[in-house]
């Protein structure tokens, strides 16, 4: 054990050194990176300011002149926003799901609340996805409780009761004020930020990267403060009055019976094996389990196994006489573990059953020694799947008012959607879907009429309601965001397109966008009349649509990853956007802009109002109309006669081409051959290039190309070219050199060359084409 502790210390030391290195290197990076960024952004800022002043000027002009031209209206549209804040270095990393505007203190001042991911890309404190890290925070909480119990024994009893509660359906744990804040003095960790204006007023550390936040009221009493729920991993943390309040986990899902049986068998076998060997082997086992636990903390599996072996050696040295027994036990364990690995991996490879986290972690362990240690050390565990939250929203219970009671709607990775009453922590409703939930969008009130639209990872969209649950549509492209209205849904997909479906599953329209969609957010707030939604695109703009009409585009300095529209501080219509590089943008909608916003939906599009530029009626035009009125019948007959004549001429010409087989595609039954020709060159020496393709299905044999020309003008090397065979579908290219005789220019001769493609034994050629050559006479004259 001494050896173990020393190795642990060493490991810790190494970690500490690495920490220091990391910090210094990060600092360096930051300092070097910041300078050019700042310059860029400064210039951007100046640009912004310039545009702003311009806008104001425009506005003034409009009012002076009282012009109602469409152009001016368009300009009006551009400057309906007041730019309040643009802070490019706020350092927030988040998405729309993790932003909310909450009246935190219940004084009608809606603060901005953001769950910041922190520097999640290169943060070593976050070990998300691992079983160990997920248990870590609960362990820490328990430890803190234990500390409390030293002082008061009654609390300990309560805690036990709470533990019992956890095993019931939805488990909830009432937290102390300092419980969740355990990442002391670490930078770049996920943080819940509560703003005042544009400054962070309260920072609350989060144990892992948050998935979604939402705020709601739990009781309808006046002057209650809202609760902020943060979904992290498998748990929902609830905050009230800027402090953690309740920790809630969803009911565990029972594991597949096959998997459960496999584990049961193994545990039984291991227990039997332990019983058959006497205490010596027990010592060994307990040692291994000890080391397992201690080394799990350092989470270094390679060193783990190495030290394990060394430990085994130690024990072996001590108990030489027990060596044989130990070996026997070991070999038995190896066979048991191998069997388990086989069954579990076969279950996993089937793809139908979702394995529990324990099984997945077990299969991921490196070698057989660690696997044995894992089993021996964890003989008593309950096999169940803790649902991982992927998305979360709220649904109002019975009133549209802001301060009415809400329920939580939670979508989990395990293909379930829950409606949870956060007040008593009960699951009210549960929906089973076919795939993992990715997106949720809610409309209506739970007590009266509501529907939830759920988007899954496989691209299917579901309609969930009190008594019905059906698939609306299976999308070809994966959804990015869903916005729900009373009778329609808007879905943004990865193919740069917005789709609109009715809730019965009928496609209404689709809008193609010039750039990939990053985010979609509904614009509610005080604009009750219009149903708008904002779409942020990869090409640095946010487009606001109402139904299928594009209302306005907001150019942004960076890609917008998160946005929210609503009441911010005391301002009703404000738009808050978070850029990809962590910038914060706040814009207020101008007071008189709301009306222009609202009547867009009611009036026809602007283009319709624009008058068409019709020229004035001339004298000639009027005369013509009069004449047409008087002689209508006569004109009609003349027109008909001419039309028939033209049709006749066309038909004749068509017949002629058939007769002479001038059509480039042959129409004979024997062979279907297409021949096109190209004349290359402008000088005395020409080249005729023939492209011959057999477009029929049969092989064409015994063909030849014949040149019909005036031999006073031209000399052709090979007037007859034999083509023995043409295979279907292959393009044959034949080049033929032609020379012009310059002496013959003065004579008025026909300078056409006829090219005939013939088949041996037939009179009519298959294809005929005519080449006009020899117009270089003028050129020659100039040069002479």
């Amino acid at each position: 054990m001494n050896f173990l502790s020393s190795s642990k210390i060493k490991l810790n030391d190494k970690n500490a050194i690495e920490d220091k290195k990391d910090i210094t290197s990060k600092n360096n990076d930051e300092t070097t990176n910041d300078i050019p960024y700042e310059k860029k952004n400064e210039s951007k800022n100046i640009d912004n300011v310039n545009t702003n002043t311009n806008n104001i000027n425009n506005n003034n002009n409009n009012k002076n002149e009282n012009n109602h031209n469409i152009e001016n209206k368009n300009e009006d549209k551009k400057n309906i926003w007041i730019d309040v804040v643009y802070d490019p270095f706020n350092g927030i990393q988040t998405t729309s799901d993790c932003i909310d505007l909450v009246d935190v203190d219940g004084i009608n001042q809606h603060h901005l609340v953001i769950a910041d991911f922190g520097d999640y890309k290169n943060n070593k404190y976050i070990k998300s996805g691992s079983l160990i890290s997920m248990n870590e925070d609960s362990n820490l909480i328990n430890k803190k409780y234990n500390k409390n119990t030293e002082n008061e024994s009654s609390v300990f009893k309560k805690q036990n009761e709470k533990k019992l509660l956890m095993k019931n359906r939805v488990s909830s744990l009432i937290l102390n004020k300092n419980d969740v804040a355990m990442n002391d003095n670490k930078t770049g960790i996920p943080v819940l930020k509560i703003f005042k204006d544009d400054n962070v007023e309260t920072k609350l550390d989060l144990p892992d990267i948050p998935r979604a936040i939402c705020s709601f009221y739990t009781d309808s009493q006046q002057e209650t403060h809202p609760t902020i729920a943060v979904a992290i991993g498998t748990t929902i943390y609830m905050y009230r009055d800027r402090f953690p309040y309740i920790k809630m986990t969803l009911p565990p899902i029972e594991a597949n019976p096959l998997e459960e049986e496999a584990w049961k068998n193994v545990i039984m076998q291991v227990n039997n094996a332990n019983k058959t060997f006497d205490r010596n082997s027990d010592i060994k086992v307990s040692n291994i389990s000890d080391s397992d636990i201690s080394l799990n903390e350092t989470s270094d599996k390679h060193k783990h196994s190495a030290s394990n072996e060394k430990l085994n050696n130690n024990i072996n040295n001590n108990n030489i006489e027990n060596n044989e027994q130990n070996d026997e036990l070991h070999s038995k364990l190896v066979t048991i573990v191998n069997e388990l690995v086989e069954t579990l991996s076969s279950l996993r490879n089937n793809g139908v059953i979702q394995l529990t986290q324990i099984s997945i972690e077990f299969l991921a362990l490196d070698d057989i020694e660690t696997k044995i240690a894992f089993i021996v050390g964890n003989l008593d565990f309950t096999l169940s799947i803790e649902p991982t939250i992927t998305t979360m929203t709220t649904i109002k219970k019975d009133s549209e008012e802001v301060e009415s009671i809400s329920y939580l709607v939670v979508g989990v990775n395990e293909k379930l959607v829950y409606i949870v009453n956060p007040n008593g922590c009960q699951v009210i409703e549960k929906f089973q879907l076919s795939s993992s939930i990715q997106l949720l969008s809610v409309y209506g009130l739970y007590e009266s009429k509501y529907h939830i639209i759920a988007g899954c990872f496989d691209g299917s969209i579901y309609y969930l309601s009190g008594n019905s649950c059906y698939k609306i549509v299976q999308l070809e492209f994966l959804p990015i965001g869903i916005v729900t209205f009373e009778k329609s849904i808007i879905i943004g997909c990865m193919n740069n397109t917005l789709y609109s479906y009715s809730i019965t599953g009928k496609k209404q329209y689709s809008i193609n966008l010039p750039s990939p969609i990053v985010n979609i957010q509904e614009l509610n707030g005080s604009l009750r009349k219009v149903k708008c939604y904002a779409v942020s695109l990869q090409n640095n703009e946010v487009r606001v649509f109402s139904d299928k009409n594009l209302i306005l585009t907001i150019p942004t300095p960076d890609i917008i990853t998160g946005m929210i529209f609503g009441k911010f501080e005391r301002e009703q219509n404000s738009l808050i956007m978070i850029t990809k590089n962590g910038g914060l943008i706040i814009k207020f909608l101008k007071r008189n802009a709301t009306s222009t916003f609202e009547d867009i939906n009611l009036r026809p599009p602007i283009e319709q109002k624009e008058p068409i530029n019709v020229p004035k009626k001339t004298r000639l035009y009027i005369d013509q109309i009069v004449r047409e009125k008087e002689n209508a019948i006569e004109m009609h007959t003349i027109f008909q006669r001419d039309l028939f004549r033209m049709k006749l001429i066309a038909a004749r010409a068509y017949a002629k081409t058939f007769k002479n087989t001038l059509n480039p595609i042959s129409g004979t039954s024997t062979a279907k051959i297409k021949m096109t020709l190209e004349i290359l060159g402008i000088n005395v020496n020409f080249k005729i290039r023939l492209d011959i393709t057999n477009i029929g299905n049969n092989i064409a044999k015994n063909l030849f190309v014949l040149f019909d020309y005036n031999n006073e003008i031209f000399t052709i090397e090979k007037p007859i070219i034999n083509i023995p065979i043409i295979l279907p579908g292959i393009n044959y290219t034949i080049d033929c050199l032609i020379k012009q005789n310059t002496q013959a220019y003065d004579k008025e001769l026909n300078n056409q060359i006829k090219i005939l493609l013939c088949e041996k034994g037939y009179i009519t050629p298959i294809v005929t084409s005519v080449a006009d050559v020899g117009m270089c006479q003028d050129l020659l004259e100039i040069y002479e």
Partner: protein
Amino acid sequence: MGRFSDFLIALGFMKKKVNILCVGLDNSGKTTIINTLNPNKVDNSMIVPTIGFSIETFSKSKLNLTVIDMSGQGRYRDLWEHYYADVDAVIYVVDSSDKIRTCVAKDELEQMLNHKDLKKRKIPILFFANKNDIEDGMSVADCSNALGLNNVKTKNWYICSCNGLTGDGILTGFNWLIEQL
């Protein structure tokens, strides 16, 4: 007013009537300031957000003042412009602790100054940077910069910091306004 009343005013038998419009964003303290000015009202502790507008009349020195206290809430700001035509002075109240909304105040001010009823008239505007007791609030200079007052060249204006609750600084500003009338 006829010639007779002008004569009476000149003699000091009758007081001149003056209309003052008091505007500003919601929660900036317009009603509180007016109540502090009004000798008839004493209680300043319970003030609720004004709905629409309220009119107070009282006399100060040689003037009969009619103060139109407008509501600052977004939906009532449309009412402001209806009073621009027959107003002799404007009091514009700014909350110096509300930094984030100064740009809104600026926007509203610009809209007011460019309104057709006020643009051609040379009326005095008194700015109150209210709530100077709050610690991290803006100073008078900051307020004036944020509102872009240096660009206001067509009108007489004066800005002073004040505290509506204690009445600190209100009289200095108001005396300036009375001088102008």
